[in-house]
């Protein structure tokens, strides 16, 4: 653990709370297992003393800002998480004035599960192109070198090379394991509909059956709703209790949107997102 960085984080949180700049600081603390970390909401300076940061701090805390709308909150963001801030600013879901962003330099986070920490960096970190958060009020820790030179989407190219039949089989098997716990939705900073289509009764989009067909419908619509919006934090895949490789779906759409619209979510808070705008020249064969 980088104690110097942790002291800086605690100091900043303390001063933000003591000066009344924010009502609370959303950061990380050591989990009950003594090995991994978990989100911490610090509302006073004594709680701020529990804040930590290390390579187990995988959670994208930006999600929690949606539940604290209207309150002045500080939040710790890693470079990847900062894209979620831009997404929510872009979609007018959070008020920049209400959020104090504590950016942290991040050497990458490792694969963790309860009571266990591996030495392996998460796949998303191995291909991370960011060296520091894209948006912040204060930056703590060092700006680090890029971990990859470019995004190659090698996993997606590999999946795309499979036949339609084998892809269909693959996803059928994956979705048959889905238990519709909705953890993928609940953890996602881009999922904030007041009533999710999955819970809507009139009209009924998807039924309650926890069965391959309805699970497939749920996962397909979930993925499409995130097209051009997923910021790649991959929290959905991390929290899935039955290990469905959701990154393959999200990254496939990220790649498509990049190719079709030259757009990647969360890089800029002002650039109009492709599915919220209509530009005739983008798709000349449509609407002529």
């Amino acid at each position, binding site marked *: 653990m980088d104690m110097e960085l942790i002291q800086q984080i605690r100091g900043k949180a303390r001063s933000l709370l003591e000066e009344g700049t924010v009502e609370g600081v959303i950061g990380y603390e050591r989990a009950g*297992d003594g090995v991994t970390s978990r989100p911490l909401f610090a509302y006073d300076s004594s709680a701020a003393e529990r804040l930590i940061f290390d390579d187990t701090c995988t959670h994208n805390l930006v999600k929690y800002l949606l539940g604290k709308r209207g309150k002045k909150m500080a939040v710790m963001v890693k470079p990847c998480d900062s894209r979620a801030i831009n997404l929510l600013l872009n979609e007018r879901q959070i008020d920049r004035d209400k959020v104090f962003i504590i950016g942290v330099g991040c050497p990458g986070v490792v694969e963790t599960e*309860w009571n266990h920490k591996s030495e392996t960096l998460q796949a998303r970190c191995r291909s991370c192109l960011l060296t520091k958060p894209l948006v912040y009020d204060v930056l703590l820790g060092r700006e680090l070198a890029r971990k990859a030179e470019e995004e190659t989407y090698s996993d997606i190219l590999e999946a795309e090379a499979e036949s339609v039949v084998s892809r269909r089989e693959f996803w059928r098997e994956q979705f048959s394991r889905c238990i519709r716990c909705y953890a993928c939705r609940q*953890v996602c900073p881009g999922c904030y509909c007041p009533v999710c289509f999955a819970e809507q009764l009139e009209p009924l989009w998807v039924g309650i059956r926890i*069965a391959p067909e309805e699970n497939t419908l749920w996962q397909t619509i979930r993925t499409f709703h995130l097209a051009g919006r997923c910021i790649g934090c991959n929290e959905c895949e991390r929290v899935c209790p039955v290990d469905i490789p959701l990154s393959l779906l999200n990254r496939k759409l990220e790649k498509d949107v990049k190719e079709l619209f030259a757009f990647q979510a969360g890089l800029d808070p002002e650039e109009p997102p492709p599915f919220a705008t209509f530009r005739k020249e983008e798709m000349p064969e449509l609407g002529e």
Partner: protein
Amino acid sequence: MNLFISKDDLIRWLELLLRERIIIAPIRVQGQTMFQPISKVEEIMFDFDNTALSSKGWFLPPTETLFSVRRDDGQIKLMPATVERDAIIFGIRPCDARGIALMDGPFLQVPSDTLYQERRNRTTIIGLACRQAQPECFCTSMGSAPDDPSHVDILLTEVKDGYIVQVVTEKGKALLPKGWAKYKRKMPTPPQLKTVPTKGIVSAIREFFNDPYWERLADRCLHCNICAYVCPTCYCFDVRDYPDKGKVERVRSWESCQSPGFSLTAGGYDPRTTKGERLRQRFYHKLLYFPERFQEVACVGCGRCGKACPVNIDIREVISDLHQLAEAKSGS
């Protein structure tokens, strides 16, 4: 009566049983251990920590049709769902078996849940004692033990060269072939577990219904349904009718008190709108409401919820916190 069988004999016996019955056993699916119907005995995992999901799904499936209604020649016909075959659920840990016994409370009280009762009647439970405890285990604090035979029909305990077979019920006895040797040596010592201070928790939790503790704890809760779905004793469900060309199916699926809309009533009123109220319901049901009605805490100490929670909400920590709150209150 304790018997002994070699691993080879156990496999041969299971092969015989599989000819006439469905066997549900822990098998490896995409890197996870899950209870599923097997097609071959070789699929069974004999050596595993515990399954990712509990075995409750056999008795209360994630989704099932309760009955269907069809219009036929001007007549309305009601067709209840039935259980087709006898089944064996093999490899249940004692904690999960206790989970089934706890679910019996709400499902078998009069009037009983027909489908649950039928599955229960037609299923024989073969348990597998735990020779090792996992870091998440705390069954001994919740009224069970790694070698507890109370809620199974047969309990197997792995020893060198084979298994000790404890025949617990008549239903279990009916499955046994003749000629297995008696096991006369003493039973192996079960593993030791860390304890959780469950004593007095039912009266302790009662005092803190309006405590800000729940809102604070719920701050980090994502309100997904993982804890409820991996839990051997969470049994809430949703019911919906599926109409389809002159036929209606009534379907029930797992549901959880954490999901939005769970407590939404006709007219739009929701008695539990805040995050804290929703999370509190989970622990109040397990630690107060269930014990008030069925005399037992609705937790078996399998530790799945704490292990699977993406933000480390752990019932053991909640129990300790409540004791601390109670101490602080009595001291003040």
